[in-house]
């Protein structure tokens, strides 16, 4: 991951940067600085239509700010010749774009069928109690938000938990405190 900072971004990778990260670099305007503009241009270069850069740019907003605000949407709309309403329609369709800020560590516990057959609900409850939050809320210290997720694609390694851009697998309720300790 350290390499990403040193090497210039390859255009083929412009649409695949993780967008749920721990270290945010908040910015009001996405494309007024060189990094954002570079990301936008490299993404645009991969598609025959501007609109196709929409998901990558929504991801970029969240990569920087941790969530996607109306202002971000309006700015993206302007760059891609779309209406803000359209951008919002797309952003609200997808589960992963946060429409509100979340805790520094966004903890998503899969409770779908294979994890449900394991102890997913208990893992979820344990995360809630250990972080002192209710589902979807930000903890008082701003560190955690815990939600249930649909299938994370780690069914053979139940229970699966996604925390920002990391996967934790074979999670049992007993392991929860240690996992939380490991997070900064």
């Amino acid at each position, binding site marked *: 991951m350290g390499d990403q900072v040193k090497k210039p971004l390859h255009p083929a990778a412009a649409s695949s940067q993780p967008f749920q990260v721990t270290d945010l670099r908040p910015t009001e305007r996405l494309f007024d600085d060189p990094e954002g503009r570079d990301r936008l241009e490299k993404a645009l270069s991969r598609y025959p239509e501007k609109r196709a850069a929409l998901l990558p740019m929504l991801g970029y907003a969240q990569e920087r700010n941790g969530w996607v605000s109306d202002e971000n949407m309006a700015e993206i709309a302007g760059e891609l010749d779309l209406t803000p309403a359209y951008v919002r329609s797309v952003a609200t369709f997808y589960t992963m*774009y946060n429409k509100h800020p979340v805790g520094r560590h966004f903890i998503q516990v899969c409770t779908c069928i294979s994890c449900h057959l394991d102890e997913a609900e208990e893992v979820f409850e344990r995360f809630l109690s250990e972080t002192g939050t209710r589902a979807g809320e930000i903890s008082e210290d701003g560190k955690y938000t815990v939600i249930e997720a649909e299938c994370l694609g780690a*069914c053979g*390694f139940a229970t699966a938990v996604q925390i920002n851009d990391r996967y934790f697998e074979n999670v049992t309720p007993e392991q929860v405190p240690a996992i939380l300790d490991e997070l900064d």
Partner: protein
Amino acid sequence: MGYPYSHDLEVGTQLSRHFGDERARTLEGWKELGGYATLPRALEMEPDAITEVVKNSGLRGRGGAGFPTGVKWSFMPKEPNGPHYLCCNADESEPGAFKDREILRWVPHLLIEGCLIAARAIRAEHVYIYVRGEFFPFSAILRDAVVEAYEGGYVGENILGSGWSCDITVHLGAGAYIAGEETGLMSSLMGGRAEPWIKPPFPAQSGAFGRPTTVNNVETLAAVPMIVAEGADWYRQWGTEKSPGTKLWCCSGHLERPGTYELPLGVNLRDVIYEVCGGAPNGKKVKAVIPGGSSTAMLTADELDCSGCYEGMAEAGSALGTASPIVMNEDTNIVSAMRRIAQFYAHESCGQCVQCREGTSWTAKILQRIENGEGTAEDLDTLYHLCVQMTGRTICPLADSVVFPLLSSLDKFKDEYEALIKR
């Protein structure tokens, strides 16, 4: 070999041979392991010749539908009047399926090679690998491999000096199971809601950006290099007449050894569950299996003696799907399992067709009430009624997908439902 366990029944083709070996994910390591050996040959073949080999091999789409891949490629125009596109469907979101991620994280260069060969066959010069947004760790590995491949001259302009150019873009989704449906995927790729569209037009006529497009699953494309290298007959040494080759079986649920295994198609499902995966742990009996990922009909423990191939699973009253058996032991509350499955579909419905938009949510609510002990006999009638009303009426088969497990659970585990119905 399988990951994280392996078994004698497995076949270790290029597909899974290097699962678990971190060397395989770098360009250098992959080449040392004999990777990218087929690409130079494919670059000298005519596109239709590549399609011919794949057609003859009988390779069928590994994303669940099982459509013959060579036939799908042959739908693409032979004389392009503009760009063609190949979309690699790495949106793996089907509950129970977790095989494509293994390819992404262990052998990304195999996938890249497969994409390039497939692109050449369909006369495409840009491949979009659409990876589900959640797969950050795995898409990062793939992405780094793509960049390495560009730097090594395997992707981009004038590949390996052949004169042929092809780009690859790794494109992340953002949390929508329905983006795994081919028109939903293209709709999302173009910067829209992942809303499937009616066919016609078919993707090979008008797909991504209005251009002829083929959408193939990760596992399908990853099998292409070895098929082109070794030939159709070689691939057909495994499997059945109608379902040739090997398949990644990803097994989950109540199992001793859950994980991914490469097995020949036609393997007996019983053997998969008990031999390969060791059956249910702690001496428990198996009660039910959903064999192909959650969109397939449930089988009872007595019904597992069937051939693990497309036609065999259909004969058994279910479907091979993605070959992702979800195993439930004797303690499993079938109603609860079904409720959780229904909730998944309700969450993932795109909302265009009312049968799916309202039906999946209604189904989940009824099942929750039954599970809570607040169900009535009428509710069971309603569930049967819903199964009829949600079948065959929608733009895409998401609504049908909830019916398969639901109807089979109602038929085969009626007693569990009735036990929860209040008197």
